């Protein structure tokens, strides 16, 4: 089935110049980023609670407000991930009305990037690109590789050389060309802007960026719909480039403008790792400009030291009475464990950042206990197991005998078994002594 979208076009956020639709990300007048603008009046009849709920259980139910070319037939059921009530995590951190938007299980590659890539590649095809690419901290690489394979597009993906092994393998397995760059993400991104200049390739987050970024709005649409067509009081969102948090706000604004939800104040809280916190530092110091940083954190998917959407994100957060916070690498690992142990959700380091920041916001009284708060979890823990590995030692193997099993349980519980006391202690000592 083909979906239709309202009329849309690229416009400059700063000077308002229109650009129609083309693979272009910056205004040729003032060099500001371009954004997709819609004629909201044209979708008043096609973007309603009724039409949306009659659509498929994926992001294409919101197609009327996504920039997808005429005749586009979505292939993959991307998005519409669970919004889970997080009672257990809430008890631990003092929150009674806490929800987790769980994009750790987004289809097809287990991160929210699947949303943006599906929208970007729809446009890549319409513009006639045969090769697509991206600069990536991992999740985007995985998603571009998988979805381009399915669409029959060639993919060339550039990543920082020190990327996690799982994210590298999760890109290569789809047959994409992966180029490891000797530098950090900001170096990779700069190179990609030059490559997009020289080669006729569709870089999802460079020349296709305005379309790509719109895919993030679906997180906001889903949150509102899954809360029963109402807005939360607060959204806690990880920040790398600073795009997602703004697009959730944009989605809420569109829903309000079209009368799908009641208008109310929503505060946005940005989450970063202290080792790469240019946006949270800007918010804390009341700035709307970014002082770039050299990233040094285990949360590599958030390690963008010079985020181009950072100024706009910092401004939006402050305008809505929100805040931004950052946490250490130790807290990031604790955050990953906390979410897994309390809610059964295994998130990557970025999710550890968001969880730990959420706990801090409640502890500091920045969010009230009974306010409705949605925490955005954007990636899966299976991709970043390295920081956790040394926390979970492999225990000794137990003989397949009931008695051995019982003894082993006692050993784990700290009660030495009578017969096997000495050898078991020796083994335990051996493990601990590693």
């Amino acid at each position: 089935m083909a979906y239709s979208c309202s009329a849309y076009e690229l416009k400059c956020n700063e000077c308002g110049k229109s650009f129609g639709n083309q693979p272009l990300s910056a205004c040729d007048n003032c060099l500001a980023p371009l954004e997709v603008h819609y004629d909201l009046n044209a979708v008043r009849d096609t973007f309603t609670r009724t039409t949306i709920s009659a659509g498929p259980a994926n992001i294409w139910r919101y197609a009327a407000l996504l920039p997808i070319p005429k005749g586009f037939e979505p292939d993959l059921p991307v998005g519409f991930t669970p919004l889970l009530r997080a009672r257990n995590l809430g008890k631990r951190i003092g929150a009674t009305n806490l929800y987790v938007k769980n994009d750790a299980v987004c289809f097809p590659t287990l991160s929210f990037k699947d949303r943006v890539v599906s929208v970007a590649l729809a446009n890549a095809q319409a513009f006639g690109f045969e090769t697509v690419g991206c600069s990536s901290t991992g999740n985007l690489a995985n998603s571009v590789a998988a979805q381009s394979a399915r669409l029959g597009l060639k993919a060339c993906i550039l990543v920082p050389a020190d990327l996690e092994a799982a994210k590298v393998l999760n890109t290569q397995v789809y047959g994409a060309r992966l180029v490891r760059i000797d530098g950090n993400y900001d170096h990779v991104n700069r190179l990609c802007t030059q490559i997009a200049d020289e080669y006729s390739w569709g870089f999802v987050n460079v020349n296709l960026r305005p379309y790509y970024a719109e895919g993030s709005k679906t997180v906001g649409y889903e949150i509102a719909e899954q809360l029963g067509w109402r807005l939360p009081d607060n959204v806690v969102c990880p920040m790398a480039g600073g795009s997602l948090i703004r697009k959730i706000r944009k989605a809420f604004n569109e829903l309000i403008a079209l009368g799908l939800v009641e208008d109310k104040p929503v505060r946005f809280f940005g989450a970063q790792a202290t080792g790469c916190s240019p946006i949270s530092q800007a918010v804390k110091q009341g700035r709307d400009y970014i002082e770039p940083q050299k990233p040094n954190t285990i949360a590599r998917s958030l390690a963008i030291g010079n985020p181009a959407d950072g100024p706009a994100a910092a401004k939006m957060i402050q305008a809505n009475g929100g805040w931004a916070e950052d946490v250490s690498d130790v807290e990031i690992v604790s955050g990953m464990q906390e979410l897994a142990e309390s809610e059964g959700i295994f998130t990557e380091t970025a999710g550890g950042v968001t969880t730990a920041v959420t706990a801090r916001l409640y502890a500091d009284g920045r969010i009230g206990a009974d306010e409705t708060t949605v925490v955005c979890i954007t990636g899966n823990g299976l991709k970043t197991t390295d920081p956790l590995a040394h926390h979970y030692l492999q225990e000794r193997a137990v003989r397949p005998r009931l008695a051995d099993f019982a003894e082993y349980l006692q050993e784990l519980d700290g009660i030495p078994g009578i017969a096997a006391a000495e050898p078991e202690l020796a083994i335990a000592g051996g493990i601990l002594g590693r």
Partner: protein
Amino acid sequence: MAVKIVLPTAFVRHTDGQKQFASTASNLAGLLAEIDQTFPALGTQIKDEEGKLRRFINIYINDEDIRFLGGEAYAFQDGDEIMLIPSIAGGGC
């Protein structure tokens, strides 16, 4: 002393198609003044109404953001490659 200036394609309509050119400027202010003389249309594009470099342009000196090198106070060194590039957001959330 000479440095090499590298431009993105978006700017070459103001430079007769030149993607790079040599300069004898000793710092960023000197470079902007030189551009005003040599390629006035480019000078207009990269500066705002107050004559300051637009905030959506990043300056790199040999792969390093000029802000890590002291910003506008950085003194160009002989052989430096100076790149002007629009700040385009990348991946991440």
